[in-house]
């Protein structure tokens, strides 16, 4: 009898907890926890800001700043018979600041549906719809918001997609040429960059995708940029350096 009495509240409790949320009947899509890590290299070595002197065409080079926007990041699956692969968007845009983060940036906790993917696709820069907006249009902490206003250039009506800054000693006797490349404007927004890599996402498991950006390759690919001749590129009519940097991003990024 006593046992029976005890059962009543237990049943009641069960009843209460089981009701309430009837949407829970639908199964949650199974997701994996994906992180992206980014690291800058200079040739074979990890980039070291300010102190390490690199050889650049026989001159001494130091790097003081490197950052860029990455946008329209998605995983893709090739579909048999279809022209375009099927895409799963990861995020619209983020800002990767290597200078402030000891050359290592991580984007964490992306919940991505499980499955076998064939690669990752992204662009460098700010897509035109977002680029048409101003820092004041975003919340203060958004990558395009006022806290990052140093990457907006009102005179071009554009965000600055990347900053590459440093110094070249042209003679070895402290004959310094300061350089700073600040590409922007819709015309320089990178095309889709596709990196094929098989990514198998398993429910509940953590997966890290590693990006390496070779800054030396950004300078030298397709013929070394003449830094002395084109030390900066802040206005649209002196875009040699800016175009060089944007042209070389795709071949300078590897993913594993």
């Amino acid at each position, binding site marked *: 009898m006593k046992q029976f009495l005890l059962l009543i509240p237990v049943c009641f409790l069960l009843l209460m907890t089981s009701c309430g949320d009837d949407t829970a009947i639908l199964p949650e899509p199974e997701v994996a926890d994906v992180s992206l890590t980014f690291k800058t290299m200079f040739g074979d070595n990890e980039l070291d800001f*300010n102190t390490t002197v690199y050889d650049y065409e026989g001159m001494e080079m130091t790097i003081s700043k490197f950052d860029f926007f990455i946008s329209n990041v998605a995983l893709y699956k090739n579909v048999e018979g279809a022209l375009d692969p099927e895409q799963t968007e990861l995020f619209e845009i983020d800002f990767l600041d290597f200078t402030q983060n000891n050359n290592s940036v991580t984007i964490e906790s992306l919940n991505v549906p499980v499955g076998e993917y064939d690669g990752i696709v992204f662009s460098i820069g700010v897509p035109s719809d977002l680029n048409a907006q101003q820092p004041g249009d975003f919340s*203060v902490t958004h990558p395009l918001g*006022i806290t990052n206003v140093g990457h907006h250039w*009102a005179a071009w009506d554009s965000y600055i997609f990347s900053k590459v800054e440093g110094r070249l000693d042209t003679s070895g006797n402290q004959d310094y040429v300061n350089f700073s490349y600040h590409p922007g404007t819709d015309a320089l927004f990178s095309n889709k960059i596709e990196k094929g890599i098989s990514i198998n996402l398993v429910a509940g498991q953590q997966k890290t995708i590693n990006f390496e950006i070779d800054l030396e390759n950004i300078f030298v690919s397709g013929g070394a940029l003449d830094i002395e001749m084109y030390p900066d590129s802040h*206005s649209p009519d002196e875009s040699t350096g800016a175009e060089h940097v944007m042209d070389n991003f795709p071949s300078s990024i590897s993913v594993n």
Partner: protein
Amino acid sequence: MRITFLFFLASLIFITSCGSDDDFVCQPGVPGDLTSIPYDPVPHEVAVPFDFPPVPVPPNNELTNDGVNLGRHLFYDPILSVDSSMACAHCHLPGGGFTDTLEVSLGVGGAVGSRSSMTLINAAYYLNGLFWDGRVQSLEDQALLPVEDPVELMHQWSDVEFLLQNHDEYPTMFRKAFGITNKSEISKELTAKALAQFERCIVSAGNSKYDQVISLNGFFSPSEQNGFDMFFDSSSILPDAECGHCHNAPLFTTNEYFNNGLDSVVSLFDFDDPGLGGITMNEFDYGKFRAPTLRNIEFTAPYMHDGRFQTLEEVIDHYNSGGHFADNLDPLINPLGLTEENKADLLAFLLTLSDTTTLQNPAYQNPF
């Protein structure tokens, strides 16, 4: 005996359980009780120029009319200084663009500080560290510091709390601002919160000539237009002055830290004032300071963290020279090649950032 003890205990529980309960009327006569004063917080709206985002406010210190009003009183009240001689406003005067217009600030009794006062205009948006060296992160944390700083207000917080708790008006104002139930709850933290609320309201009015032109309600003179083009590197004919990279619109600062070439040093550890390096201990941060806003720059002379330049002409000459070399001199600081006419045009543009309606806004003035 036991019964009396229980009775005592019960009455204790009874007493402590009230107070926080809104519709329970406590016995009158509790010392310092403020619950008879109504607490009806009304959100405080801050108008901002069209190209600014809404004022960012931390969730634990929403702006209310009574909070802002309390902050304004505290900001102008010398009660915060040890000898009741000076208030925050002493070094942050509206007429001086919210600075004291001295090279370096003078605290209580004439104590000489080591840095120049900073404007408070648009401080709500300075989210990359406050002070010239970025050593505090929020206006709430900042407001705790001047009271005990020996070259500022030189007081003790415990004494200030005592004075505020026993003041004729402040307990009522703290009640209305924060809903405290007893005078004894007046604390340095709430004082700092109120000051921060007031400071967040000090936002550009958006009436400078620059603002009018940019919102298509006015035109630059040819000289101002040339200055604008050089400031933002937007002309292929005029030289680039590069200013906008570090003092970008709409705040006219990016809130980043740079070495803009004020001093030559052999080793980066040799700067008289280590700036950001003194906080991060990172060699390449020594001698870097936060680029301040140039809005209302006309009124905040002298210039730089140590007030070394008396006029904007001197500032422009400094940048035109390419500055002094140090290993972390910013790559954007180079000889600019500006002619006398270019320099005059750049100055004319800087003066379009003046907005006396911000400085004269009645809501920012001394309430006493």
